Structure formats: C-alpha cells, structure tokens
C-alpha cells in the first residue's frame, strides 16, 4: 500500500529530502540485526510504501515537491540525484516564480485556487501509478506562507478528491522566538483549517528538536540540516515497516495505521534505552499511546509502565488506548530503538502559547491588513481562534 508524500514549501522540501534519505539508508542497511530473509521482507515492504522502481534501478521516491519559488526545489532535486542511492521523479515537482511571502492568506487564497488544477493533476498522475493508495502524508511548516497556507488549501482538496484516503499532516512547529513575525497568525489559521480536513496531525517542535541536538547529541553549531535529520530519523522510525499484529511475520500493509491525532515527543535514541524518559511525577493525560520497538530483544521488553491507568483519561481503558508494535529488524543502525507516538496533553502548552500570542497581536490588529488584502477577514481569524480554543478546552478536560 503506497503513501504519497507531499513536500510543501521550504521546510517541507528540506525535511522531505532528509526523510527519504534516511529511509533509503535504512533500507540498504545490511546490519538489520535479524535474519536475511526477514531483512528482505522488510526491504520489500519499505520499497512498496515509499519508492517506485525505475528501469535504471535507482528507486524513485513517491513524493511530490511543491513550492511557490524555485530555489529550494532545485537544491532538493539536485541533492537527491547526487546521492546516487535514490532520486525524485522527473516530473514530480511544481513550482512558481514568486513565493507566498510568509502570508497564509496569499498561500491559501491566491496560490491555492490559482494552481489547484495543476497540482491536483500532478497528484492524480502520481496516484495512478499505484495499485493501492493508502493515503497522503504532507510535510509543512506552520510559520510561513506556502507550507501553511497552500498546505491547508491542498489538504482540503485532497479530502474532497480522495474521501476514503488517509491524510496525515507532518507539521513543524516553529521556534518560539523568531523565525517569522507573523508565525502565530499563520499557525492558528493552519491548524484550524487542517482540523476540518485532516485525519492526523503529527507535530515536531523546532525548540524541542533543537534541544535534542544540543543536549542529547552534543552538536555545537546546530544547523537546520541537523534539526531536519533528527526529525527525519523520528519520522522514519515511525513509518518504516512494522509487523501487523503480535507474532505475525507479515509487515503491516498500512504504514499509516494510526487512527487518531498523534504527536511524538522525544525519541529514545541511545541503544540501551527502551523507552524515552519522562521523569515528571505527574503525567500529561493521554488519549492514546503507541510504542514502536525495533531491534534486538524486542519481544522481551516490558512495556507495563505504559498500561498504567494514571496515564490515561478516565473514560478510556489502557487496553484500548495503548498499542505496541514490535519489529525485529533494527532501524538506522540502532541496535535497539523505541519510538513513542502520543495523543496527549503534551501539546497543550505550546498550543496555548501560540494562541495567546496570536490573540495578543490580533487584539491590536497588527498585520491584519496584510491578510485582509488577500481575502482573509477578521471573522476568519475569529473562527480560527474559536476552533482552537475548543481544542484546548477539550484536551484540558481529559
């Protein structure tokens, strides 16, 4: 079952490249810590999900690159081709000459409708290559104009055109201070719109990943490349093939077998760690947790701690809320690794902060003229705030 990855904007394309690069590296990794046959099945499954085979033998990523200005896409295509291990399709990209200017309204109301037909045609052509399409995975940042605005527009279109497909949006949460001044406006507009069309929002916060680079990986001069590679590693560890059920040797056909809104916090990186540490004395209440274990001794790992009712809201049984996927085949040369995907109150604080800052700015009407210029009115802002305050309230009440 295939997944079409749609890389949107500078962030989406830069990260998308790292994701495919990581998956491809893992794919060719002979150190699977498992038997040869199992490795082969894993590789076949991975290829089926993420790559097309071409006559040249170089796998072609099942991805579409979309941006409103050409610089990043050119760089991305070049980097992939240079790697020699994989590449993007020749006609898999769509770009224009002038970007969205960090303006959500421009991305959503101008670029969206203008390029709707071309982009949807591009997607249709890609989808037609597959026997079975499971769904779409978009990668975008919330802070800018294209990933966020055009991304929201496109997600709506995907929902309308493919009502039975799964749509998951990988969202990059910008640094708290300074990437884009209007990032909070762009964020609330993006989130409120995605809520209406998306099945799942998988969130990565730049601040958190930055800390991982600094504290866990000891990188001195952290570049965006470092940050993106960590995100790619996290995504790879979640989406690479996993067994479909306990004891089965069949890899899950559906790599996006997550049915609810999810969010991965810190990844357990070092080899001996089974699960990431969360040493707070009280926990964020969860609706659901998914632990993915890969590598040696997966079957003997004790995940009892995740079944503690204290972790979950009172109206859920841990047995319903908690899932575990264990796979022998190790990921990305880590002898043992674990990933936690969690739908919990963990995101409450960042979400509340962003809403607060956006509301604060909106109260003074600063920058609003830049949005009304392109058809996003004050009522649209208010609608977005309302939707998100409801989300915050719902999570608070867990």
């Amino acid at each position, binding site marked *: 079952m295939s997944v079409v990855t749609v890389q949107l904007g*500078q962030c989406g394309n*830069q990260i998308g490249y790292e994701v495919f690069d990581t998956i491809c590296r893992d794919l060719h990794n002979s150190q699977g810590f498992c038997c040869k046959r199992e490795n082969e099945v894993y590789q076949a499954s991975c290829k089926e999900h993420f790559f097309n085979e071409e006559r040249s033998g170089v796998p072609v990523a099942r991805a579409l690159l979309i941006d409103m*200005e*050409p*610089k*990043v896409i*050119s*760089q991305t295509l070049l980097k992939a081709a240079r790697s020699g291990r994989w590449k993007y399709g020749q006609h898999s990209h769509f770009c224009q*000459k*002038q*970007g*969205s*200017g*960090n*303006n959500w309204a421009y991305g959503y109301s101008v670029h969206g409708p203008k390029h709707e037909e071309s982009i949807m045609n591009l997607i249709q052509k890609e989808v037609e290559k597959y026997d079975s399409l499971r769904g779409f995975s978009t990668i975008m940042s919330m802070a800018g*104009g294209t990933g966020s605005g055009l991304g929201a527009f496109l997600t709506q279109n995907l929902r309308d055109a493919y009502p039975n497909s799964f749509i998951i949006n990988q969202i990059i949460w910008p*640094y*708290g*201070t*300074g*990437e*884009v*001044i*209007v990032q909070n406006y762009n964020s609330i507009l993006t989130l409120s719109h995605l809520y209406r069309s998306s099945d799942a929002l998988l969130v990565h916060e730049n601040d958190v990943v*930055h800390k991982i*680079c*600094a504290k866990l990986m000891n*990188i*001195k*001069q*952290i*570049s*965006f*490349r470092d*940050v993106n590679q960590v995100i790619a590693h996290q995504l790879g560890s979640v989406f690479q093939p996993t067994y479909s059920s306990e004891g089965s040797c069949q890899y899950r056909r559906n790599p996006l077998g997550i049915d609810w809104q999810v969010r991965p916090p810190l990844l357990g990186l070092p080899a001996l760690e089974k699960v990431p540490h969360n040493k707070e004395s009280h926990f964020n209440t969860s609706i659901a947790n998914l632990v993915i274990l890969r590598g040696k001794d997966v079957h003997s790992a004790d995940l009892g701690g995740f079944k503690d009712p204290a972790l979950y809201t009172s109206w859920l049984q841990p047995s319903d809320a908690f899932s575990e996927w264990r796979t022998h085949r190790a990921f990305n040369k880590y002898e043992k690794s674990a990933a936690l995907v969690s739908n919990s109150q963990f995101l409450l604080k960042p979400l509340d902060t962003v*809403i*607060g*800052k956006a*509301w*604060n*700015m909106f*109260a*003074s*009407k*600063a*920058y609003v*003229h*830049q949005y009304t210029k392109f058809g996003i009115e004050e009522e649209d802002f208010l609608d977005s*705030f*309302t939707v998100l*305050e*409801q989300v*915050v*309230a*719902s999570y608070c*009440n867990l």
Partner: protein
Amino acid sequence: MAQSVVVQVGQCGNQIGRCFWDLALREHAAINKKGIYDDSLKNFFRNVDTRRNGDGVDISKGKIRSLKARAVLIDMEEGVVNEILQGPLKDIFDSKQLITNVSGSGNNWSVGYKVFGSQYRDQIVEKLRQTAEHCDCLQCFFIIHSMGGGTGSGLGTFILNVLEDEFPEVYRFVTSVFPSGEDDVITSPYNSVLAMKELNEHADCVLPIENESLFDIVSRINQMVTSGKPGTTVKPESLITLNEGGIKKKLQEKPFDTMNNIVGNLLLNLTSSARFEGSLNMDLNEITMNLVPFPQLHYLVSSLTPLYTLADVNVPPRRLDQMFSDAFSKDHQLIQADPKHSLYLACALLVRGNVQISDLRRNIERLKSALHFVSWNQEGWKTSLCSVPPVGHSHSLLALANNTCIKPTFIELKKRFTRLYKKKAHLHHYLQVDGMEESCFTEAVSSLSSLIESYNELDVTKGLPIHDPLRLNIVI
C-alpha cells in the same frame, strides 16, 4: 525566480546606483566562476546577445553573453548619467534606459514633481514598461533618491505614484537619503517634507539613510585602516566602503563613493536571500509582510555589520557574536538613531555566510533582554540564513528595525520645515509652479505630523506593564 528593477533618480540616486551596480557585478563575479547565466544573476541582470539587431535578444540560460542591468536612470541634468555611460559600467546600460534633461530641477521639489513629472510621464511609463517586459516575474522596484533636492525628491516621488498606478502588484522599496542638519541646500526641508507625504502614501517600504551616519562610519573605518596597530590589517575587498574601482585604483574614488558604497551593500544584502540559496530563505515580499504591522509605519532603520574583515583568518566565535551586538549599536545604524533605547515594533536579521540557526538563536536570546519590544509583538523577530557571504567576508548581518527611534528624524525635519515656512521663506519659488498651492504644504506637514503622532502613541506604551487581552471563553 522573480526579478527586481532599480529606478535611480537624480544626482544622488544615480551616484548610489552606480556604486550599487559595480558592487553587484563584483559579487556575482566572485561567485559565478563558470560564467553561466544563473537564476541569481537573473534578479538584477538580463543576459543579452548584442550581436543580434536592436535591443538584443534575451537569453534565459547558458553562458553569459552580455549582462544588462534591469534599471532605469533618470536625471534632469546630464552630468552624472553621462559619467556612468562613459565609465567602466557603460556596457551594462543602454541608451533606452535613460531619461535626461539639461536644465535640472533647481533644488525645487515642485519643479521635479509637477513640471518634469507631467512633461516626462509618458516617456517614464514607456521605459518602465519596456524594462518590465524583459522580466518574466517582476517582483519589486527599488527606487533610489535623495529627499533634499529637486529631481530625486520631486520627480522621484512622482515616479513612485506612477509605479503604483501602472504596476500596482509590484512592491515599491525606496532608499531615501535624508538631508543632514548642515545641508547646504536651504530649501531641503521643504523638499523633504513634500516628498515624505508621497512616501507615506505610495511606498511599501522605506529605508531612510542619513549622510551624517554614513560619514561617521567612513571616518571610523578610516581610523581603523590607518591606525597601524598590529593585527589590524584589513582585507581591502571586505571594506563596505570600497567598490571594485576603488580597490583597483587604490582608493582613487569620488568623494561620496565611500558613503554610497555602504548603501550599495545595503541593497545587495537586502536581496541576498532572495537571490542565493540558504537554509532559511527570505524573499522581498516577506520583508514587508513581517516588518510592516500597519500600512503607515513602513520606515525601517538599517544597520550593516561587519564593516570590514581583518586579514587575520581565524574568526573566533566571540567575533561572530560581536557582529550581532554591533548591529544594535547606534554607531552602526545608517541614520542618526538609537534603536536600543526606543521601542521595537519588529526586527529582521538577514544573515549571510557560515552562520547556523543555533548561532542566530543564541544571539537573539542574549540580546533581546536589552531591547524593548511592543506589547503585541514581544518576540517579533524575522530571520533568514543565506549561505553565500558577501565578497571578502565569511559572514555578515543586515538588521532591519521598525523602531520608534526614527521619530526624532521626522520631528527634526518638521522643525526645520516650520522654521522656514513660518517666514514663508523661498515659498514663491514653489508657488509659482503650475499646480502648486499652499495647501500642498499644509497637507504635507499634516501627513508628517500624523506619522509622528502614530509613533508617539506607540512610545507611550513603552515600559508599561503588559496586560494580555482576555481570551475567548469556550463552552463545551
């Protein structure tokens, strides 16, 4: 990739323009080793095969044949433009891009605006259209002029109006040189205030420059260069005051060129992230989007660092951090202003070279506590990282601030205007021009007053405790 067109008006505008084009060619020559006409060149230059007849055919890819500047040069005197056409840059301009006259505007805004404006409107529109037609995606006009004279100030702002009428979707960035206190043009306050009204109403973004600041920077650099202290040898190509001509001929430059080169470098750095690749791009439309919270408040104070690179190769990280600190010091601002002690509405940091996101964040964290930001934009930073450094540097920083520190410049201007206007001094030179009335003056000063008032209203909020507005109350 989008394109930009430079419209240089008047003596000052054309002299700065000349320096800009020289520096632009130098920058591209340093990076473009293979002589291929690439996307980054396309922003400011056309590639033309001049062997073919007439205007030459535009070649969009392949080897560079003949680069032509995307520019329109306008002056009501011939001296400066003729010099450009006879100088080392003559090949990048052709006669179709010029509009000149011989009589000059007599340092009179109304002659520039009303007389020459109406006389040359059609020609101006035609030349602009021609230049625009050579672009497949025109994004921005850069207007360069001075405020104190007649042509740059009057005709320059007239052209601003024309641009808005004829090309409403294209951004208008204006680099305006404001007169200093001891300006030798007596009527410069009139010209400047009349021009300000036009900037208020028709510019998307204005970068004010004051000669005094440029002069101070040049003096400090000269002191540094001639100090003879050990370890202070400067790499000549890194001086932001020299262009290629200056380096080659060993400082035999025209007197204002050192100052003009600073402005040229400002424009190059402003557009670097749009032209070259980087891990966090910033296009020109992002500048207005992030730095203009309200339409009227579109004046940005700029600062460039470093001013030079020492020849000593090792750059310790402390020096990188020093670059960020310098960007906020009043010595590095291109107008007489002190942003640190006033109120920030928004701030942008355009970084070039070998600087990563962690360096940027570390410095923002370090500096922000000493700065005052408006209550509704406490963390209002717009940042960009461009991988390509300027010539002679390993990294550089351009800071753009929308800050109330610009208010004193406007107040001072208004004072000088009022001093003259009270006595009706020299007014007849203006009123005798067809279409000029006293109401032009009163409207202009009123526009300036209202701008000053907007900044006052913001300044009042500085230092006040911040009360976050109540959030929406949701019932589930």
